[in-house]
């Protein structure tokens, strides 16, 4: 009369319930063992988020500044000539087809700047005097913090615009129209203070005067020490290739041609190395977290022998028992993963807010973070789950409790 046997089965929702029994009854242990995974995932999400945010920040910075600026300088140092470019260099460079604008900067080496006329000679505060084309501000995508930039009129008179550091060192915090500085043995009116230059940080330490005024009052010869060149963005490399020979056909090796935005990108590349390091640390935290979960699960299986025995008596198959404990490990690591992603997102958002960036968290970091947590949970839970399943029901039931 052997009727066919209806198989044991566990409703999926009940699998979920049984997998949470241990977690609900041991809340502190659950929290602590999820913490390791949480820290690891948070580190990884945070690092990926920050590096993505700073990359996007760099892109928008480059977009704003333009990557088509080249600087042409006379090499300085032993055997590299006078530090000046040939007088006609700017004109020659302007002849190159893809060159859009040229801006001449001529260092007035003899001139020094002081707050007043009775400060000793030597105390220049490291501020240089630069005679510049009026197009400089636009070419460098700089901006005025206070006052105004030089124009055709003020550029011909003894007026100066200070770089941000120079203004700071001279103690000029705002421009009211009455500030003067002792520049090249005479008074120059300060008409503006600039924000920091992202493309030419050395000019932050300069007092800038118009080329015309420099010729008139400072006896400057107007020979360029540096030429800033904006070129057709698609032709940057081609222009770079011919730049030195054009600027100084006789001694092209004395000319240094650079692209200032390269420095910004190089800094970002250095950050990439740091990102890799932090990712590595995050991975170690994850590994430790995984070992922690495995450990907690092994203990849990031992403590719950009688529960395992009972479940087998109620008709649970080995597979049901294994999935209960595997599910518990996955839940633990999943909690850690979700917590870690939230923490990582919070850290990224907070840091980006401080830096004034747009917080950008790559979706792959979120999906990958939770995915990685689950994979670790599965690996960590596998052995304890198999152990629970292999436990003999009779031995398990003989345990007191």
């Amino acid at each position, binding site marked *: 009369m052997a009727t066919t*046997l209806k198989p*044991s089965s566990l409703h999926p929702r009940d699998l979920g*319930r049984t997998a949470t029994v241990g977690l609900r009854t041991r809340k502190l242990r659950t929290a602590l063992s999820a913490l390791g995974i949480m820290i690891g995932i948070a580190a990884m999400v945070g690092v990926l988020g920050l590096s993505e945010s700073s990359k996007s920040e760099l892109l928008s910075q480059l977009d704003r500044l333009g990557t088509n600026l080249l600087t042409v300088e006379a090499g300085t140092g032993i055997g590299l000539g006078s530090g000046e470019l040939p007088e006609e260099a700017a004109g020659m460079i302007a002849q190159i087809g893809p060159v859009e604008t040229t801006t001449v900067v001529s260092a007035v080496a003899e001139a020094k700047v002081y707050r007043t006329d009775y400060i000793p000679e030597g105390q220049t505060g490291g501020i240089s005097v630069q005679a510049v084309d009026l197009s400089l501000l636009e070419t460098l995508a700089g901006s005025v913090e206070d006052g105004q930039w030089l124009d055709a009129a003020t550029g011909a008179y003894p007026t100066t615009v200070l770089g941000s550091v120079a203004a700071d060192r001279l103690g000029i915090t705002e421009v009211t129209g009455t500030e003067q500085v002792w520049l090249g043995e005479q008074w120059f009116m300060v008409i503006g203070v600039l924000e920091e230059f992202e493309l030419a940080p050395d000019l932050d330490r300069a007092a800038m005067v118009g080329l015309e005024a420099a010729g008139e009052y400072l006896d400057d010869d107007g020979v360029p020490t540096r030429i800033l060149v904006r070129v057709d963005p698609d032709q940057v490399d081609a222009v770079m290739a011919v730049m030195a020979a054009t600027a100084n056909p006789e001694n092209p090796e004395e000319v240094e041609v650079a692209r200032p935005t390269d420095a910004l990108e190089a800094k970002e590349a250095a950050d990439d190395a740091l990102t890799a390091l932090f990712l590595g640390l995050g991975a170690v935290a994850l590994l430790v977290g995984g070992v922690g979960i495995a450990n907690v699960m092994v203990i849990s299986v031992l403590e719950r022998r009688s529960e395992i025995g009972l479940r087998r008596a*109620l008709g649970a198959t080995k597979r049901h028992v294994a999935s209960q404990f595997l599910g518990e490990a996955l839940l633990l690591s999943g909690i850690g993963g979700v917590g870690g992603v939230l923490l990582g997102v919070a850290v990224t958002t907070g840091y980006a807010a401080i830096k004034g960036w747009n917080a950008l968290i790559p979706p792959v970091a979120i999906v990958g973070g939770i995915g990685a947590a689950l994979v670790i949970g599965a690996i960590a839970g596998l052995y304890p789950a198999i152990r629970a399943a292999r436990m003999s029901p009779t031995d398990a039931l003989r345990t007191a409790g």
Partner: protein
Amino acid sequence: MKAEPVLSLHNVTKEYPTTPVVRALQGVSFEVNSGELVAVVGPSGSGKSTLLHIMGTLDRPTSGEVTVAGHRISQLSDKDMSSLRAHHIGFVFQQFHLLSGYTALDNVADGLLYTGLPLGERRHLAEEALRRVGMGHRLDHVATKLSGGERQRVATARALIGNPSIVLADEPTGNLDTKSSDAIVELIEELNESGTTIVVITHNREIAEAFPRSVGLRDGRIEYDTSWSEVA
């Protein structure tokens, strides 16, 4: 024509492969028919729990054949044995084995957990089962808040909930005081009267003698079976 028994053991032996080998059961044969209430009685170490585990398909005999609800377990896989337990066998243990964080209702509902029945239906049946054992007023009590006697009632309700072919109880009164113990014995008799087939394992001769049939076990062999004399 005689009805097929719910449970039959034929020449069952069980050896534990320890050194030296323990022969916990040495050729045990007996049958339990539907509706019977049987006590298996014997001193400590006589093999009672081993026998219960084998009757309950929690373990396989070393030799011999066990048939439960028409299924010969030598022909069943481990998975099939689980199915048999889920659908046909109810257990009551000396240590109750209730899940401490759960209410009485949910502990009883777990009796059908591995039949795949949804929770709502299980809870409904659990309430009925709890009323049957006189625990209708304690549905939402957490297991740890119940007295020993109450816990054993809850455990009994869990064994009954699916109307199993047979209920196996291992020392159900072993952890109870005399009063609760008497009440549980009374409950078992009541349940049997309403049709449930029950085998109770005990070392208490008094309890055994009160039951319609008792099987005496000693050193892994059946010493007596009160049903023999009836036949003779």
